[in-house]
């Protein structure tokens, strides 16, 4: 019943090829996006008011518009302004910009959730502002933000499939070609679904371990 030749000779090589491209999108996008999110989140929490307003507007815009629209803008519309991308670059750029906006939201929330009294206590002990942020605010904010930021990475894994919209040949793109050639949509996309499930499950598992590792009794459930 199951056509093993189709799977082993046609589908799986194509999907594995696509998987590499997907990973090449997901990994840099989540790392750079997270870094950008931290910077943006700090600016939105502690920056001067003009920077805060700018950051808030950027975040509201990128969170209010579907990623699909952002991708189309980057790939099809920016060339109008003289900015050209090939599909991979367009997808990666969009992912980084979008995910950094979401990440900044979690980072900002975590930074603002640190109780003012602890900052005072640190100052009363003679900590400088920089030391207070480094040793008191950041370790707590990082733990607070970890679940949401991890969740965002899981989302990014799934939404990386949108790169297909700008003809980037990642997991989804490769699958669509095989499916259209053979017209075996059900098998192909069931297999692709399993690929994504595997990625998401592994990522969630790693993130859970990370949370577990940094867990402090009674901290975080406010």
């Amino acid at each position, binding site marked *: 019943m199951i056509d093993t030749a189709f799977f082993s000779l046609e589908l799986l090589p194509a999907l594995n090829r696509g998987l590499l491209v997907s990973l090449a999108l997901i990994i840099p996008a989540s790392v750079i996006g997270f870094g950008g999110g931290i910077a943006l989140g700090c600016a939105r929490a502690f920056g001067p008011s003009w920077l805060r307003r700018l950051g808030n507007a950027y975040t509201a815009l990128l969170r209010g518009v579907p990623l699909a629209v952002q991708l189309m803008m980057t790939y099809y519309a920016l060339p109008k302004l003289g900015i050209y991308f090939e599909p991979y670059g367009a997808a990666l750029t969009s992912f980084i910009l979008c995910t950094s906006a979401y990440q900044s939201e979690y980072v900002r929330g975590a930074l603002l959730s640190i109780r003012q009294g*602890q900052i005072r*206590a640190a*100052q009363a*002990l*003679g*900590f400088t502002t920089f030391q207070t942020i480094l040793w008191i605010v950041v370790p707590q904010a990082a733990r607070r933000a970890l679940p949401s930021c991890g969740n965002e990475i899981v989302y990014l894994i799934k939404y990386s499939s949108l790169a297909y919209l700008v003809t980037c040949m990642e997991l989804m793109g490769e699958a669509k070609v095989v499916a259209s050639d053979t017209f075996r949509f059900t098998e192909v996309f069931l297999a692709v679904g399993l690929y994504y499930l595997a990625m998401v499950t592994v990522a969630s598992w790693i993130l859970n371990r990370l949370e577990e590792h940094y867990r*402090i*009794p*009674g*901290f975080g459930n406010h």
Partner: protein
Amino acid sequence: MTSGIEIVLSVRNICKSFGAKRILTDCSMDVKRGEMKVLIGPSGAGKSTFLHSINCLVPPDSGDILLEGRPLDRSNKKALCAFRMQVGMIFQDFNLFDHLSARENVAIALRKVRGMGRDAAAHRADEELARVGLARQAALYPAQLSGGQKQRVAIARALAMDPKVILLDEPTSALDPELVGEVLSVIRDLAADGMTMIMATHQMDFARALASEILFMEKGRIIERGTPEALLADGSGTRTRDFCTRLLDMGAQAGHD
């Protein structure tokens, strides 16, 4: 009570306003080594703001602060940090660092501010925790401690810095009644060891027994000061005594409810 005559901390004419609202007006005091000054007064009198302004957590608008005769330059951040290192602070709501165990709470300032090594700091932290009776709780996190234990960790944290004076901002007012005693007994021990302290409190029995001087604050001014004997004597007719009688009445009423 006083074991020396040297003045450790001197605060002169501190004034502070928030917007148009005057919070502190010309608050001054000299604290000699080994003395225990007690600030009392109705809530909103400015006791807490006064304590916070002494180590510039609430920067005063004007006035001078001298530690062992040397004036503090508030605009110099380095000098301010060095000053705060020598002036301990105990908060009403403890303000332990939630992400650090009791031991780490005490050790972190030793390591990051005083530059002590990890092991030496941990060792010192354990000593201070033992001093407040928490040797066995060193590995627990703030969320696992009772209120009284939290406040004792906070005291150990301040003591570890070898402060010249400790400011205590109503250290027992956020505690359940049955936990007040353990914290007060730690403070009593400190006083017996000759620690210099300034404490805001509503615990009148405690103040009467231990204070070298009581300062009564109202509407941002220190309106009366003197020894507990002088201020609280029957028929002294002081505002302090008035206030304390009312406080006791309320306590008695609450006790009957």
